[in-house]
């Protein structure tokens, strides 16, 4: 078992008000699983990924990664096992540093000393890594990442997140802020990198068609709980319409989610 969440509760206190973001979530991931996660706005998807990554400490419950209880570990300590990509392309890279420096930092994950970050050999290696992206980025290693477009930056972020062979990859609507062509490209890169290294992946998406077509397991969250957990075979037999129907029967009437079910790319409402 690569990931094991048991009895996770997370309550945010805003003044006197309490927001229950996660209400007793249990989840176990086997090695090599690619799980798509859907759910209405505020369902707790991002909070779930934050709890796994360690940027958010649950009030109750345990997080185990590779059998190890990491519930109390700070995020930077778990980082060597976890790759993350967020919706905002600006979040995953250091804008004022060069492309080569960004990649090398990702490569040297967890191990840090007084040797030079960029050696000629390392630069050659990074160039090789960029070539398959097909974006000609291998010729822009010395350029600041801030000069890259959103799509290029997000492709680089996905590469960086998978570079150090993490046990787990956490993707939080990572194509939602991109135009359709770039979103397609970044998704294709994600699938290839994940497939090559067989990285266990959790991918949050607002698009039901994506949730059905990608990966080999589907989870639907609602109001802090996992309400639906479909295997690859069950997923295969479903159409987007079936999925929307399933949700209706579960009492989910969230407009955003159901709209997303019509196959529209609702990048606009997705900022959260």
């Amino acid at each position, binding site marked *: 078992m690569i990931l094991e969440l048991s009895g996770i509760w997370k309550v945010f206190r805003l003044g006197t008000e309490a927001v229950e973001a996660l209400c007793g979530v249990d989840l176990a991931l086997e090695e090599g699983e690619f799980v798509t996660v859907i759910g209405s706005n505020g369902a707790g998807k991002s909070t779930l990924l934050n709890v796994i990554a360690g940027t958010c400490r649950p009030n109750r419950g345990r997080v185990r990664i590779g059998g190890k209880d990491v519930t109390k570990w700070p995020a*930077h300590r778990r980082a060597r096992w976890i790759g993350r990509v967020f919706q905002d392309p600006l979040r995953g890279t250091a804008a004022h540093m060069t492309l080569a420096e960004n990649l090398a930092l990702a490569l040297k994950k967890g191990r840090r000393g007084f040797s030079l970050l960029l050696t000629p050999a390392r630069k050659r290696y990074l160039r090789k890594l960029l070539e398959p992206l097909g974006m000609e980025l291998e010729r822009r290693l010395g350029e600041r990442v801030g000069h890259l477009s959103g799509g290029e930056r997000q492709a680089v972020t996905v590469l960086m997140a998978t570079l150090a062979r993490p046990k787990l990859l956490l993707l939080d609507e990572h194509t939602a802020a991109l135009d359709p062509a770039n979103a397609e490209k970044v998704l294709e890169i994600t699938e290839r990198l994940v497939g090559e290294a067989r990285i266990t992946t959790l991918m949050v998406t607002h698009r039901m068609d994506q949730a059905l077509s990608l990966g080999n397991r589907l989870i639907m969250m609602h109001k802090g709980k996992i309400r639906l957990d479909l295997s690859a075979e069950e997923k295969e037999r479903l159409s987007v319409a079936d999925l929307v129907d399933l949700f209706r029967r579960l009492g989910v009437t969230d407009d955003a989610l159901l709209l997303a079910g019509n196959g529209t790319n609702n990048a606009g409402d997705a900022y959260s």
Partner: protein
Amino acid sequence: MTLFLPAVEQGLIYGLMALGVYISFRVLAFPDLSVDGTFPLGAAVAATLIIAGWDPFLASLVAAGAGMVAGAFTGILSTKFRIQGLLAGVLTMIMLYSINLRIMGRPNLPLLGRPSALSTAVEALGLPYTWGLVVVAAILVLGIKLILDLFFHTEIGSAMRATGDNPHMVQAFGVNPETMVILGLALANGLVALSGALVAQYSGFADVGMGVGTIVAGLASVIVGEMLLRPRGVFWATVAVLLGSSLYRGAILVALRYGSVLGFTASDLKLLTALVVLGALMAPAIRARLRGEEA
């Protein structure tokens, strides 16, 4: 021309302070005000030790160490205890005011006739006193600059730069951003205190009030250098800081010598410096408005 050598000398010695300000403000993006306390801390520690008969080099090193401890303290306040960066720096600065008085035992310690690290080195190298000091200061400060450049290209130094750029990102790549902030502030304030120690020896006294406005002077140097060179990369950025520092010290010397013609006195310097920094900070907004964009 008589002002040229002193301007470069002072530009270099104060340049260490400006390098410290560059590290906290630019590399870490941390508005650290503790430098107003760590600059006189360096002076106080070095002066006290030299008067007690210590070797001036050793005294300066200990002064730098004291600055590092104070910088780390500010870093711990802001990271581990979640105190706002500005406030953490101000608290350290105020505490240091009392501590510096304790160290010196009185508000002012004269060092006239005592050995100074830089002039000892000038004598040891057999250089004439006229330009020997500039040479020794240049060797020391440029040496430190090059070591800094190298450091910021190592794995750990790059992680520090990335922390100032995007703390979320470094955390995701296994770096503890809190550690980086603490280390960086220690480094910055170590340089500032070393600068204070050398300035005390250069000017022949340590004074508890000599730190007032250090941060503004440091920022002025950083900003002037950046405007002139528009540096990309650490190497040129640190060159720009030292250039800015020399120009700033030159401007002060000119103002002190000829300012009286216009009715300036030494006590107006802080106002003038702050106005220069203010002007530089307002420039982008003013330029945008002149171009008709929304500021």
